[in-house]
């Protein structure tokens, strides 16, 4: 399975693509070809192309879940639900912004029939409260019903999004901790890495962008992770020096101080650094003992990063003025020749 991810030569060739059309032509000759061919040529806008290539991840998840041992399936399915949570947030954002279904449908992750969300009906209800009511029989309803009181008062979907995220990661972490042996070690490392990255980014953003109080930052973050602990989050919430905290957690990260001197600019770069660390952890899962369920998770995570990179590439190549800075936003293909 690993071999189906792009090699460095393939990444180089994709960078060399003169424009969006030649990039798509190249992708059509790759593993993504069958997915891009599903859309008519004239409909293959950058947004649609990004949607089509995500279908490969859907296929990968569904077939790996099907092939996985019985005991691993619930966990992999739980991880797959992350895309459903993202879809739900996108739908709620779409409703709040009053945009049409046609504008939202190709932003969503293509889960096909594997989803419990009646996304189109929710969008067409045009009303967040009515949309949430449609989720009564789903695992999201209870979480959202607590947050709806705040939505009704504030008319802001932020509390809904935070509630969904916190609930998703809490439940996943709980499930991962029920694993044992090598399986647990590998999952803690990868899922913990993702939680670390999210938690750190949330804490810093809530403090820097949203000016939330210490109590709010603590309540909107998680008290666990692989490297990032509760004391780190509380330190950020309480106003400690952010570069110092980050340096304490990741002593090997280069230039953290200069990176975060101006947090608004440095945060996306820090996020990319953390993503690359997760990528390395995923690659490390392929070394040594292969008999653990961290292997499929690592592959799926790498594939997700690859698709994220391709999406960045598609957007960059479709821009009228190609900005070479896009390379900074690549996880898998960042080593390609400049």
């Amino acid at each position: 399975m690993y071999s189906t991810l792009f090699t460095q030569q393939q990444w180089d060739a994709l960078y060399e693509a003169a424009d969006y059309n030649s990039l798509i032509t190249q992708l059509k000759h790759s593993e993504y070809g069958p997915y891009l061919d599903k859309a008519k040529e004239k409909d293959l806008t950058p947004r649609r192309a990004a949607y089509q290539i995500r279908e490969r991840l859907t296929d990968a998840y569904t077939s790996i879940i099907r092939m996985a041992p019985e005991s691993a399936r619930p966990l992999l399915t739980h991880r797959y639900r992350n895309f459903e949570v993202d879809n739900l947030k996108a739908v709620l954002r779409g409703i709040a912004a009053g945009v049409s279904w046609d504008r939202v449908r190709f932003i969503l992750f293509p889960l096909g029939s594997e989803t419990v969300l009646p996304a189109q009906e929710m969008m067409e209800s045009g009303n967040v409260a009515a949309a949430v009511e449609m989720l009564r029989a789903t695992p999201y309803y209870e979480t959202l019903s607590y947050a709806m009181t705040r939505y009704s008062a504030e008319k802001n979907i932020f509390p809904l999004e935070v509630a969904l995220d916190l609930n998703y990661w809490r439940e996943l972490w709980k499930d991962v901790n029920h694993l044992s042996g090598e399986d647990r070690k590998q999952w803690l490392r990868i899922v913990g890495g993702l939680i670390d990255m999210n938690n750190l980014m949330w804490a810093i953003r809530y403090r820097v962008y949203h000016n939330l109080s210490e109590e709010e930052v603590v309540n909107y973050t998680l008290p666990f992770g692989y490297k990032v602990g509760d004391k780190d989050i509380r330190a950020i919430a309480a106003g400690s020096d952010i570069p110092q905290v980050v340096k304490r957690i990741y002593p090997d990260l280069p230039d953290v101080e200069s990176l975060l001197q101006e947090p608004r600019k440095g945060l996306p770069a820090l996020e990319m650094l953390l993503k690359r660390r997760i990528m390395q952890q995923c690659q490390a899962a392929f070394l040594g003992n292969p008999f653990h369920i961290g292997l499929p998770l690592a592959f799926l995570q790498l594939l997700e990063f690859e698709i994220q990179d391709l999406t960045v590439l598609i957007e960059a190549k479709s821009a009228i003025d190609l900005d070479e800075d896009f390379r900074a936003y690549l996880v898998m293909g960042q080593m390609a020749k400049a």
Partner: protein
Amino acid sequence: MFYPQEMTEIELIVPTKDLLSVTKVLSRRGVFYQADSYYSSPEAKTTSPNVWQERTAAYAALERRILNIMQSLGVDEGNPPSHEFETMVEIETIRPAVDEIEHEVKNISDRLAAENKKIEQMQNLLTQLEPLAGIELEINAIRNPHYLYSVLGTMPVSNIDRLQTSLSRIPFVFTPLRTDHSTAVVWLAGLKSHDEILERAARSAYLNPINLPESYEGTPAEIIRRLNQNIEDARRSIEALKVDMSQLRTRHDKKLQSMLWEVRSSRMVTDAIVRYGRLKYTYLVVGWVVSSALADLEQRIREASKETIIETHPVHRGGQNRNVPIALRHSKLLRPFQMLVTTYGRPSYGELDPTILMAVMFPLLYGAMFGDVGQGLVLALLGWLIATKRILGGMASLGGVIMACGLSATIFGFLYGSIFGFEHVIPALWIIPVENILTILGIAIGAGVILLSLGFILGIINAWKARDWGRLLFDHYGIAGLVFYWSLIGLVASVVLRDQMPVPQPVIVALAAISGLAVMFSEFFIRLVEGHRPVIEGSLGVYIIQAFFELFETFISFLSNSLSYVRVGAFAVAHGGLSSAIFLLAELASPDRGVGYWIVILIGNIFIIGFEGLIVGIQTMRLSYYEFFGKFFRGGGMRYEPLTIRPTAEE
């Protein structure tokens, strides 16, 4: 009987003035299957087709509204009226009545919904207040204390720890009053000077204050009493509203049913007209009629419109007739088996309808595998109860099949001498399977060879009827396939029988070789006969390899198909084996054959009827569908659905 009913294609050219009367004849008789004819002459200047589309949409909308009202009132659709509607109902004559009833129903439904919602809200408040029932303190003192910040509310259990962590820098009191698996009723209090911190912390932990209306005052216990009282009042209101609804139902049910059928039949007529083709002054109607009903229909159309031109084309069974709808009409006894056939596929026009064969073969195979007088009779009784809808009404169509299988099992039970698993209580009229295992297995394979050969022959007949000469001669299930199959059986027989074989072995070998080559190169020969060029696609080498593997696959499938029927004998033996196991258990439970012995026998028999009965049913289905139908039955026919407001008699 062995083929779908003969059909005639009918084309009518109807003058505009007779449009409605002819359409009513077509829809009234229940024999006309309408085909779409969207042709529209550019000169067609009379009523625009959109008018009919709009009328159809208006009738459909009105029908939906009536159905919604009926659903709210719990009124069923009833049966279509025995009389025919003479004219199409005018929408405006019915709409006011629908509006009025709808208004009345909506009024009560809305009030019912409001009362239900009120109860839900009050019950929610009760859940939150019940933990405070023992506190002898005004609720306002908790909600709005003078010197404290205080909040009473509900929150997710998973946020409790985080909320307490977030408040670590200030003094506070936090008390969970009631906790279930996901929600907690809590009280949070702190200094008034810390109200902003507490407020933000509570909000971000999704602590939602109890939303008790200001009108509720007093101690929690007093409020709980009032809430219970109000819930009771709301329930009484709901009961009263239900009585009103019931009165509405009694007053309007007949009227609603009558309006529904009037509107539905009018919608059906306009719907049919929309699908007519349009000429300048006339309409073109195309469709199919069961040939036996043609004369009567023609006469009725002529009575309705003398100027209508009628053209008919009887359809022969030969050749490809994919567009002809398939009308299967069997007696009530055969209809359950027709259902089994149509589940696999609907025969196409000109193809043999295997319902009768199924009606014989299915129970026969089932009975042979499940031969037991007692269990068979129980199964037959069960089938009868299902067929007559006394139990499991939704499976009534399967009842007939179960009954036939049960009766067949009873007959085989006599042949095997088995009753409720006892093998020596009644004499075996033919054979006891467990004592003659090899014989019964051999007979099963022999029966399989006969059934498979029958499948081949039926396939040949179908190909001949369809004038599909290539398939007839060279297909794996055509003449070449049949000769190949028989010559393979002949070869096996010549080895077993040696000198007693009536046909010399070299002749059989030659037949096997020739027919084998024909099967191997069947694609080549079929393309040659059908005139397709090139006769071989791709390179010759690849084709020969492919052809060889096809021959190999055919050989394997003939072998596996024949051996598949071993299961008929194997299940007959297994039935005896399973019964012996039950007797063994019964002996263990009660060696002196007391009550325990008979209880185990009873439970064992129930288990055999349920478990083995189901497995044998699945095996019979497999043998019928895969081994037998696969040889000759292609299906793919279109269902015959004539215009009528009554459900079709078929199926």
